[in-house]
C-alpha cells in the first residue's frame, strides 16, 4: 500500500478525519446504495497531542529539539550487565522487524549482537513512523522509513557512551573508540556499555552525529537469526491472545449475519444460565451493527453461552450482497464510461494486425491470519489499558478514547506480538479495538469490575469482512507482429479501499483510488487507456498483503506473456526489450532469476513448463522464474527461483523468508477454494475447510537470490507476493494453451 509521496500532512489529515467523524459512526450501506463513503468514516478525538513536535524540523535552524522519534531514551535501554533492549516502533507479526531494526541500531551503536534484545512499543508518539507521522506497520515501510532513524538512534547512544567514558577517564573523547559493546582507550583501558549506561543516558543527547560508512557494516547485511526464534520454538512467546491479567474475563460476540444489521429480538435466558457466563450484553458494533457479547470465565464458556443465545436479526435496512449478482453488476458497470487514470489514443485498436481481449475475475480474500483477532481492555475511571496486535496503535487508541469518553492521553495501547496480520490489524474503523472497548465499557456498566479480552472465533474472523476487494478487469489490446502494443484499452471495476480512510486525501484523485490501480502499466511504456469504476457494496474491504498489486500484477504479467506467446517471442527477452535501457532494478532482478534458474539453458522434466513474471511494488522488485505442471487437472508448482531487488538487504535471512512467505501466500490465491463469496449478504466461508490456505504439500522448491546493492533499503513484506501467481499462470498457459483469467485458477 501507499506509494512514495509527501505524507507530511498525514498526521493533520488523520486528526481532521477523526474530528469530523467524531459524532458519526460508520454505517453499513443502505440497500442498493451507490453513494460514496466520503466523510462518514471514523470515530474518536484527536490523537496527536504532540503534532507540533512531530512535525518540527528545519535542518538550517539550530538548536532544534529532537523529535520524539529521535530520542534514544524511548528506544534503547542498556542494563548494567550490558544487555541492550531495543524497542520497536512497529508490530512484529512475522515479518522480522523485531530483529532487523535492532540490527540497524546495534550497527551504529557498535553493540555486542549477542547482548541485544528487543521488545514492542506502545502508542507513545516516539513510535510513529518517522515519515508518516502516525503509528503504522504497513506498506512494507518499516525498514525503508526507519533505516536512517534507527541508525541515528544507535549513533546517538554510542556518542553518549563515548562522552561518559571520556568523563570517567578524563580524556578527550576523540581518543576513544568502541567495539562490540565496549569503549576502549588508547592505553588499553576498557569499559563495557553496561558500566557506562547510567552516566551516558543522563548526558544531553547530541544533535549531530556521524554515521558509519556502509562498507564498515558488520551487522547490517549479515544473515542473522531471528531474536524471537527460541521463544517461538519453546512456547515462551506471548501473543496477544495469550495475554492474561488477574481476574480477566473473555468475551465472544454474536454478530449479525449481514454486515451492519441489527438485533430484532433477543432471548438470552439460556445463555445466562451457562456455567461460567458472567454477563450477556447488547453492544454497538462496527458499521452501525448491533451484537450480543457473552462475557465468561474463559473462551469455552463464552462460546457455550453464545451458542445458547436466541437472536433474531433485522437485516432489512442493509444491502445483501450476492457474489453472482455482483459479478453481473460489475460486468454491466465495466461497459460504462468512467474516470481515467491514464489516457492514450485508442484509434489504432481497430486496425491492429493482432489483438486480444480478456476479462479477469478476482474474488474477495480473507487475511486469515493464524491468530484470530483479539483485544484485551482494562478500564478504570480515568484510564484505559489495551493489549492487542495493532498495526496502527495511535488510531486504535484514538478510537478507544472516543468509545470510552476518555482523552487520548488516558489510553495506552500495548502492542502485542501477533500471529500474522497481513493488513487486517489496521482497519480504518479500528473495528477490533472499538468493539472490545464497547464490550469492556458495557461489562463495567453491568458491574463487572474485571479486564475483558474480546476474542474472535475463527468463524468470526473469517466472516468479519475487511477483505481484499473483488475485482473485474477487462482489456482490449492491439499489437503488431513484433509484439509492439499499439493500443491497450483497460477497465477495472472494484471497491475503493482508501476512500473514507485517512489516506483518501493523498491517494484518491478524481474518483480513482491509487490502491486499486497501483502496478498497472508500470514499468512498461504502453499506450494504455485505463478506466476505473469504484462501485460501493456492503462488504468492508481493506488492504491485503500487497494490496492493488495482488490483481494488477497478475493482469499485466499474464497479458504481456500472452502477447509474447502470440508473437512467438521469448517471455524474458520480450520483457527485457520493453525495459530497454530503463528500469535497471527490474532488469537485474529478472536476469538474476533467469541465471539462477537455468531458464533457457536447462531442459525441463516431461510435462513441466517455465513461467516468468516480474513486478515492482512498495519500491522493491521481485522476479520469479517457476516450473509448473498440471497433475490430474490441477495446477502444480514445482520450483521457484526468485531474483530480488530491495537495495541493501539488512537481514538477507529475513528477506529470503519474506519472499518465500509472500510467494506462498500468493500461491494460496491460485488454489481452488481460496475465495470469499457471499450469498444473500452472508459470507459463505467460515473456517479453514472452506477457505484454502497452501499446505506444506503444495509448496515448491524455492531459491531466493538477492541483487547486491548498497543503496538505502526498501521493504520486503509484500513485494514477493504479486509476481508469483502470474508466473505460475504463465507456465500453466504454456502447458494448456489456454490463458488463466480467473483467481483462483480454474482449468476446467
Amino acid at each position: 500500500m501507499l506509494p512514495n509521496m509527501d505524507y507530511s500532512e498525514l498526521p493533520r489529515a488523520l486528526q481532521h478525519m477523526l474530528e469530523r467523524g467524531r459524532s458519526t459512526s460508520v454505517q453499513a450501506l443502505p440497500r442498493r446504495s451507490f453513494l460514496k463513503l466520503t466523510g462518514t468514516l471514523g470515530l474518536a478525538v484527536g490523537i496527536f497531542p504532540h503534532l507540533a513536535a512531530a512535525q518540527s524540523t528545519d535542518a538550517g535552524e539550530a538548536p532544534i529539539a529532537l523529535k520524539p522519534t529521535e530520542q534514544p531514551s524511548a528506544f534503547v535501554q542498556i542494563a548494567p550487565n550490558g544487555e541492550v533492549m531495543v524497542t520497536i516502533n512497529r508490530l512484529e507479526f512475522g515479518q522480522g522487524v523485531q530483529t532487523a531494526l535492532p540490527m540497524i541500531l546495534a550497527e551504529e551503536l557498535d553493540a555486542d549482537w549477542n547482548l541485544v534484545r528487543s521488545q514492542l512499543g506502545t502508542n507513545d508518539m516516539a513510535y510513529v513512523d518517522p515519515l508518516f507521522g502516525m503509528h503504522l506497520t504497513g506498506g512494507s515501510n518499516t525498514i525503508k522509513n526507519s533505516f536512517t532513524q534507527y541508525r541515528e538512534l544507535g549513533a546517538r547512544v554510542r556518542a553518549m557512551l563515548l562522552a561518559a567514558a571520556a568523563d570517567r577517564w578524563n580524556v578527550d573523547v576523540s581518543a576513544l573508540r568502541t567495539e562490540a559493546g565496549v569503549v576502549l582507550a588508547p592505553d588499553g583501558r576498557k569499559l563495557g556499555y553496561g558500566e557506562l549506561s547510567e552516566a551516558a543516558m543522563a548526558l544531553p543527547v547530541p544533535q549531530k552525529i556521524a554515521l558509519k560508512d556502509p562498507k564498515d557494516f558488520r551487522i547490517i547485511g549479515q544473515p542473522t537469526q531471528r531474536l524471537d526464534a527460541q521463544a517461538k520454538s519453546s512456547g515462551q512467546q506471548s501473543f496477544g491472545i495469550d495475554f492474561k491479567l488477574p481476574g480477566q474475563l473473555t468475551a465472544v460476540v454474536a454478530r449479525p449475519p449481514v454486515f451492519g444489521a441489527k438485533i430484532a429480538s433477543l432471548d438470552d435466558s439460556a445463555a445466562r444460565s451457562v456455567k461460567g457466563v458472567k454477563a450477556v450484553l447488547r453492544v454497538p458494533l462496527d458499521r452501525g451493527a448491533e451484537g450480543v457479547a457473552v462475557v465468561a470465565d474463559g473462551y469455552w464458556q463464552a462460546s457455550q453461552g453464545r451458542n445458547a443465545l436466541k437472536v433474531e436479526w433485522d437485516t432489512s435496512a442493509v444491502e445483501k450482497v450476492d457474489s453472482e449478482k455482483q459479478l453481473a453488476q460489475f460486468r454491466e458497470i465495466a461497459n460504462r464510461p468512467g474516470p481515467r487514470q491514464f489516457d492514450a489514443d485508442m484509434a489504432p485498436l481497430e486496425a491492429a494486425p493482432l489483438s486480444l481481449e480478456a476479462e479477469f475475475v478476482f474474488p474477495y480474500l480473507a487475511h486469515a491470519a493464524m491468530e484470530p483477532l483479539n483485544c484485551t481492555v482494562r478500564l478504570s475511571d480515568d484510564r484505559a489499558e489495551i493489549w492487542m496486535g495493532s498495526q496502527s496503535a495511535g488510531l486504535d487508541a484514538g478510537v478507544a478514547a472516543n468509545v470510552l469518553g476518555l482523552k487520548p492521553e488516558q489510553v495506552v495501547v500495548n502492542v502485542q506480538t501477533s500471529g500474522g496480520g497481513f493488513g487486517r490489524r489496521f482497519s480504518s474503523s479500528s473495528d477490533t479495538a472499538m468493539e472490545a472497548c464497547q464490550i469492556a465499557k458495557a461489562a463495567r456498566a453491568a458491574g463487572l469490575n474485571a479486564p475483558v479480552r474480546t476474542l474472535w472465533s475463527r468463524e468470526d474472523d473469517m466472516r468479519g469482512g475487511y477483505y481484499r476487494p473483488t475485482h473485474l478487469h477487462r482489456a482490449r489490446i492491439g499489437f503488431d507482429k513484433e509484439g509492439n502494443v499499439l493500443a491497450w484499452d483497460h477497465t477495472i471495476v472494484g471497491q475503493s479501499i482508501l476512500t473514507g480512510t485517512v489516506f483518501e486525501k493523498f491517494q484518491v484523485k478524481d474518483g480513482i483510488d491509487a490502491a486499486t490501480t497501483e502496478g498497472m502499466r508500470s514499468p512498461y511504456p504502453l499506450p494504455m487507456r485505463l478506466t476505473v469504476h469504484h462501485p460501493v457494496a456492503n462488504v468492508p474491504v481493506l488492504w491485503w498483503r500487497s494490496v492493488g498489486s495482488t490483481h494488477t500484477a497478475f493482469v499485466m504479467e499474464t497479458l504481456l506473456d500472452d502477447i509474447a506467446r502470440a508473437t512467438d517471442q521469448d517471455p524474458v527477452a520480450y520483457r527485457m526489450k520493453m525495459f530497454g535501457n530503463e528500469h535497471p532494478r527490474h532488469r537485474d532482478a529478472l536476469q538474476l532469476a533467469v541465471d539462477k534458474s537455468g531458464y533457457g539453458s536447462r531442459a525441463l522434466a516431461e510435462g513441466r513448463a517455465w513461467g516468468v513474471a516480474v513486478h515492482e511494488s512498495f519500491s522493491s522488485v521481485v522476479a520469479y522464474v517457476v516450473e509448473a505442471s498440471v497433475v490430474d487437472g490441477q495446477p502444480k508448482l514445482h520450483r521457484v527461483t526468485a531474483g530480488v531487488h530491495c537495495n541493501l538487504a539488512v537481514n538477507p535471512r529475513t528477506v529470503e523468508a519474506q519472499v518465500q512467505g509472500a510467494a506462498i501466500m500468493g500461491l494460496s490465491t491460485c488454489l481452488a477454494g481460496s475465495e470469499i463469496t457471499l450469498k444473500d449478504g452472508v459470507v459463505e466461508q467460515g473456517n479453514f475447510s472452506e477457505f484454502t490456505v497452501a499446505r506444506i504439500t503444495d509448496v515448491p522448491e524455492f531459491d531466493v537470490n538477492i541483487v547486491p546493492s548498497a543503496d538505502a533499503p526498501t521493504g520486503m513484506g509484500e513485494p514477493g507476493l504479486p509476481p508469483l501467481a502470474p508466473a505460475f499462470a504463465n507456465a500453466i498457459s504454456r502447458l494448456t494453451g489456454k490463458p488463466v483469467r480467473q483467481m483462483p485458477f480454474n482449468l476446467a
Partner: protein
Amino acid sequence: MNVNDAVESVEASPETPLLYILRNDLSLNGPKYGCGLGECGACAVLVDGRAVRSCTVPLGAVGKRRVTTLEGLGTPEHLHPVQAAFIDEAAAQCGYCLNGMIIATAALLNRNTDPDEDTIREALRHHLCRCGTHMEILAAARRAVAYAKVERARRSMPDGVSPKAAKEVSP
C-alpha cells in the same frame, strides 16, 4: 490430569475440549487456538506420545493419559531435538503455527526414526501456516531427524555425545 509430567487438578465438565483447559486453567499457552475444529493444527499436543488436536479432544477422553505440551517437550537447558532444530533453522515467522509443527514433527519421530521428505510433508500436511514458512519448517524437520539420531546415540552410549556434536550434524 497428567500434564508435562506433573499431576494437575482441574474442575471442568468432561466435554470441555482439552485446549481450553490447558490455556485457561493451566496457563499453558504453547498450544494455540486457531480454528476450534481441528482444521489448522495450531493446538496440537502429545497424548501418550501421539499428536492430537486439543481443540477437539474432550477432557473426559484424556483421563490419566500423559499430556505433553510444547512447554513440556524440553527445557531451556536441554531442548528437545525438534525444538533445537527449529531454532537453528530459525524456522519462524509469526510463529503461531510452530507449536503444531514442532509437536507433529516430534510425534512423527516417535513412530518413524528416519522419515524421508515425503513422509515429513505428509505428517505436516494438516498443519496450516499462513506466513509461508514451509521451506524453513521442512528444513527444520529434516534437521530434527538428524538431531534425534544423535540424541538417541548419546543416550545409548555411556559417554554420550556432546550437544555440540549434535549441532554439527547437518541433515
